[in-house]
């Protein structure tokens, strides 16, 4: 699973994050509340995942969350909708299969630029950064990236092993030229067995097999192994570009499971304060976890000018990616 074919940060126009935004649904569901619906417990969930509560969509919509996050990021970047060159939306599925969530958000924002969805599952933010860097390289000035996920629609709420893991939410960033992009790499290890969400069968009279509604399936052990190896692979590739573990100030890793983050941290030998987590409050929001965490860290002043950030994510596909970005003095 070793490949460097897309790792070309050195050859790219630089990328800076000019603004961030995040929006979570109102409804909070604690482990104790889940324990009343399912045969599980707060202790079981916390020790195996680090999750204490998550937000889930009720009457709010994933479109509303995406738009709220996008407006925050645009305001912080002081960019208006007309100045956008492209809107990239990372999502498993918006409120409609078509039009894409990116197009729906463009309409809400009053933007008329290109807008399309990217589906790279939980690694979607890194994939979107990769696409954004290429747009910026070919002349774009402002790329809006939104990661918006309604995992509560895909989870099987009768499966206590998986439904407790997920939450809903949206994060957004505005990417511009500038900054210092030091590593950006995305890849796939094609495997549809260990993590998938099948599509539903429709009602074609010509298709013989009708399936009941399908939900998320995950082989947790195998996904855990892939996740740890994928993040370590990105760190290894970054090291080959001259970025060592101690050079990284914050390891912002996809918040899928606290234990994955701990396993990576132990292997890097770096201190826990370099590994921020918010999974205790959000659960796994698929591709939205990194931009939501980045927004929180920016708002709290934890992310500072001059710091080097490492992003890494992994998900169904199997997709994975890593990025090393130094926050510029002007950011």
């Amino acid at each position: 699973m070793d490949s460097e074919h897309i790792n070309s940060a050195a050859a790219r126009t630089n990328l800076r994050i000019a603004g961030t935004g995040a929006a979570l649904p109102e409804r909070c569901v604690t482990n104790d509340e889940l324990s009343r619906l399912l045969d599980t417990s707060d202790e079981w969930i916390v020790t195996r995942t680090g999750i204490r509560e998550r937000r889930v969509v009720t009457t709010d919509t994933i479109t509303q969350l995406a738009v709220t996050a996008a407006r925050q990021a645009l305001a912080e970047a002081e960019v208006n909708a007309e100045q956008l060159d492209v809107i990239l939306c990372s999502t498993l599925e918006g409120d409609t299969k078509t039009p894409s969530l990116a197009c729906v958000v463009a309409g809400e924002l009053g933007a008329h630029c290109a807008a399309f969805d990217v589906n790279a599952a939980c690694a979607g933010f890194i994939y979107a950064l990769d696409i954004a860097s290429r747009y910026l390289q070919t002349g774009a000035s402002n790329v809006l990236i939104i990661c918006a996920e309604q995992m509560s629609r895909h989870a099987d709420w009768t499966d206590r092993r998986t439904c407790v893991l997920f939450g809903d939410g949206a994060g957004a960033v505005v990417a511009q030229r500038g900054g210092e992009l030091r590593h950006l790499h995305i890849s796939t290890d094609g495997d549809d067995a260990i993590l998938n969400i099948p599509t539903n069968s429709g009602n074609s009279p010509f298709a013989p097999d009708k399936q009941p509604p399908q939900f998320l399936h995950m082989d947790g052990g195998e996904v855990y192994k892939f996740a740890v190896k994928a993040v370590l692979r990105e760190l290894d590739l970054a090291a080959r570009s001259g970025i060592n573990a101690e050079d990284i100030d914050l390891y912002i890793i996809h918040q899928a499971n606290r234990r994955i983050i701990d396993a990576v941290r132990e292997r890097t030998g770096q201190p826990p304060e370099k590994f921020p987590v918010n999974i205790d409050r959000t659960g796994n929001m698929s591709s939205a976890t990194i931009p939501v965490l980045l927004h929180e860290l920016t708002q709290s002043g934890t992310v500072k000018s001059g710091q080097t950030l490492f992003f890494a994510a992994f998900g169904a596909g199997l997709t994975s990616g890593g990025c090393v970005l130094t926050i510029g003095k002007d950011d």
Partner: protein
Amino acid sequence: MLEKIQNVLRTHLDNETLEITAATTFEELDLDSLDLVELVMSLEDEFGIGIEVEETLVTVGDLVRLIEGLL
């Protein structure tokens, strides 16, 4: 093989004198499913093989048989 797994487990649990036999269950060692995955990852590196963690793995002896079947 049992000896190798005993050693990996002792290192993993940070207890060099821990008594482990083929009949010892992972539950007795206070290992949950993800600890077992971590253990399997160490063994995959050690033997250069891919081991799929199965829910039928209950005792250390089960793991010994699984790995011996893969070598």
